[in-house]
C-alpha cells in the first residue's frame, strides 16, 4: 500500500507531462509555442501571490516570535492528540476552507518553520492538496445565478473537508511513519 502510493508520487508528473505533450503533438498543435505562451504567465502568477505571502508571513511571524503560537499549541496539543493531528496544523486547518491565497501563505510559513520534509510539513502538504476553499467557491458559483438558499451544500462541503483532514493524517502516518 505504502509502496504503491510512493510509486504514484514518482510517476505522476512524468506521466502527466508525457500525456499532455504527447496528446498536443498527436493533435498537431504547436506544442512548443503553446508552452511558451503559458509559461509567460508564470511570473505574473508568482507576482499575484506575493502580497498574500507577505501578509501571512508577517502575521504568523509576529504571532510565533512573541511566544503566542507556542502557548496555543501547548493548550491544543492534548485535544488534537486524540485525533492524531499535530497541533501545529490547526491554523492551516482553520484557514484552508476560507481562502486559497491565505492558506498558501500559511503553508509556506510552515515549511520555513518546520521544514517541508518534516512530518508536519508532509502532512500539511497532503492536507492542502486534498481540500479546497469552500466559502469563496460557494459565493462565486451561487452568486453567479442568484441562488440564496443553498440548502445542504455547506454541510456536504464541510463533511468532505473533515474527511480530507482525517484521511490525510491516517495516510501520512502509514506512508511517512511517525
Amino acid at each position: 500500500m505504502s509502496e504503491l502510493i510512493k510509486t504514484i508520487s514518482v510517476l505522476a508528473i512524468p506521466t502527466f507531462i508525457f500525456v499532455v505533450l504527447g496528446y498536443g503533438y498527436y493533435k498537431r498543435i504547436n506544442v512548443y509555442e503553446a508552452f511558451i505562451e503559458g509559461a509567460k504567465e508564470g511570473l505574473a502568477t508568482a507576482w499575484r501571490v506575493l502580497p498574500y505571502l507577505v501578509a501571512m508571513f508577517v502575521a504568523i511571524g509576529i504571532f510565533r516570535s512573541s511566544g503566542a503560537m507556542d502557548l496555543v499549541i501547548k493548550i491544543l496539543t492534548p485535544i488534537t492528540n486524540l485525533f492524531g493531528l499535530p497541533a501545529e496544523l490547526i491554523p492551516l486547518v482553520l484557514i484552508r476552507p476560507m481562502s486559497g491565497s491565505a492558506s498558501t501563505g500559511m503553508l509556506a510559513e510552515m515549511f520555513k518553520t518546520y521544514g517541508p520534509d518534516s512530518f508536519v510539513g508532509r502532512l500539511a502538504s497532503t492536507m492542502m492538496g486534498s481540500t479546497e476553499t469552500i466559502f469563496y467557491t460557494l459565493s462565486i458559483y451561487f452568486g453567479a445565478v442568484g441562488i440564496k438558499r443553498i440548502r445542504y451544500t455547506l454541510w456536504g462541503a464541510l463533511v468532505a473537508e473533515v474527511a480530507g483532514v482525517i484521511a490525510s493524517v491516517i495516510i501520512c502516518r502509514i506512508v511517512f511513519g511517525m
Partner: protein
Amino acid sequence: MVNGIWIVLILAGLLMGLVTGELEAVTQSAIDSAKYAVELCFGLIGIYALWLGLMKVAEESGLVEAVSKRMGGIMRFLFPEVPERHPAMGAMTMNLIANMLGLGNAATPLGIKAMHELQSLNRSRDTASHAMCMFLIINTSSVQLIPTTVIALRSAAGSKNPTEIIGTALVATSISTLAGVIAAKILAKR
C-alpha cells in the same frame, strides 16, 4: 473571516510580545518574514512557468474535451435529475476535468456556465437544486490530481523530494470527495 484571523494573529502577537518582553524579537521577525516572502516568491516563478506552460498545451490540444467524453457513466450516477444530453452535463464534466488537471483559470468560467444551465432546469429561482448542491460539494472537495502549488512551495522551500506528497494527497482527496458525494446523496434524500 480571513480579515478577522489576520488581525487577531497580529494583535495577539504584539500583546503577547509585550507581556513576555519579546517585542524586539517580534519586530525583527516581522521584518524578516516580509523579506523571506519575497525570496520565496522568486523561487516560485520557474515552477509556475513550467506548469502554466503545460496547462496551455493541455488547453489548446483539447485534452479536457477528450477526457470529458469518457465520463458519461459517472456523471449520470452523480446527477440523475439532469438529462443526459443537456448542456449542463457537458459544462459540469468539463469543469470537473479542468479542476482535476489543475486548470483553475479554465475551470471557473465552465463552472459558472454549468450553474447557469442548472438554473434553467431549476424549478425555484433562489433555492439550490440537488444537482447544484452535488456539483458544488464535489467542486469544493478538490479533485485535483497533482497539487501543483504545494509542489512549487515545497521545492521553493528546499525540499529534498517536493513531489513525494502526490500519492498521499491523491488518496486523501479521493476519500474527501467520496465522503462529500455520500453526504450529498444522503442529505438529498431527507
